[in-house]
């Protein structure tokens, strides 16, 4: 009798585990492509982007599989963004040595974030709303954004996170998210305008 009770309890737990595993698999299937694309846009290298996404999936499963499914999405993107930031820090560290070895005229000064801020109040012309821009070109425009703007834009606009969720994922204040996002949008608007002028 006791053994039967224990067996049914074990079966119940096993079924719950299988349900959780299926849910986790469905979740990973859902985010893997977008996660990869975000990593690729953030670091510009397919293989390294793939490694970062794989790493993020592994860590999510290792550490957070037991958490509630609705927590997986912010956790996954938080891990992925941490990896992206680490990658950039390492690259910056390597870059410092490379800059030290290279002549100074290689520096073009494009890293100044203030120089990249577009006019935040400019209205979007009607003709731009109807304009079809090739996906590849838009992807390149996103890729060209400064890292934090890119992250804020992709998390807010593409992944659909709220300002507070994006701030949690990016480990920054909500005000910073708003600023990064606004700058990203205005930069992308410029790309749309340039595309329109070429047509």
């Amino acid at each position, binding site marked *: 009798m006791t053994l039967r009770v224990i067996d049914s309890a074990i079966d119940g737990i096993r079924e719950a*585990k299988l349900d959780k595993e299926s849910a986790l698999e469905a979740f990973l299937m859902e985010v*893997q492509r977008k996660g990869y694309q975000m990593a690729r846009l953030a670091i510009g290298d397919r293989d390294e982007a793939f490694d970062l996404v794989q790493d993020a*999936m592994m860590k999510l*499963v290792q550490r957070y599989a037991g958490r509630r499914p609705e927590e997986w999405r912010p956790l996954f993107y938080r891990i992925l963004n941490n990896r992206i930031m680490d990658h950039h820090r390492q690259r910056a560290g390597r870059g410092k040595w490379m800059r030290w070895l290279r002549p100074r005229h290689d520096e073009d000064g494009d890293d100044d974030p203030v120089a990249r801020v577009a006019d935040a109040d400019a209205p979007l012309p009607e003709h731009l*709303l109807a304009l079809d*821009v090739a*996906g590849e070109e*838009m*992807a390149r425009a996103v890729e060209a954004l400064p890292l934090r703007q890119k992250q804020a834009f992709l998390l807010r606009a593409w992944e659909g996170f709220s300002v507070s969720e994006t701030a949690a994922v990016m480990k920054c204040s909500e005000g910073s998210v708003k600023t990064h996002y606004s700058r990203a949008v205005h930069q992308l608007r410029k790309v749309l305008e340039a595309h329109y002028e070429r047509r």
Partner: protein
Amino acid sequence: MKGDRHNPGRSVADKVTRALDEELEAMDAATLQRLNQAREAALRQLRRRSRLRWQVPVAALATVLLVVAVALNIHTGDELVQTVDLASAPPLELLTSGDDLELFEDLDFYLWLDSTHDGTG
């Protein structure tokens, strides 16, 4: 488009994300396969850990059961030894009857007594 006019920033975001979605849909098969393999590897790790989580309590339970079984077996073993001693003991009537027991204990005496009575009688 009405919403776009009220929120031009949103429409830029929509345009860009739509374009990114299209890129996503057109992802090449090789990349998709790599992503599927990475997902599978992560899930394998989860299954391995789940098995380990099952094995630890099961092994603990098995150890407890083994200890209980060994303890019971030792106790039963004592009883068996006792049974063997009883089997090699004298018949039960001899042990339960006080007179018979005396007869059995002094068997030599009674045999000598019988022979003496036979010789004298």
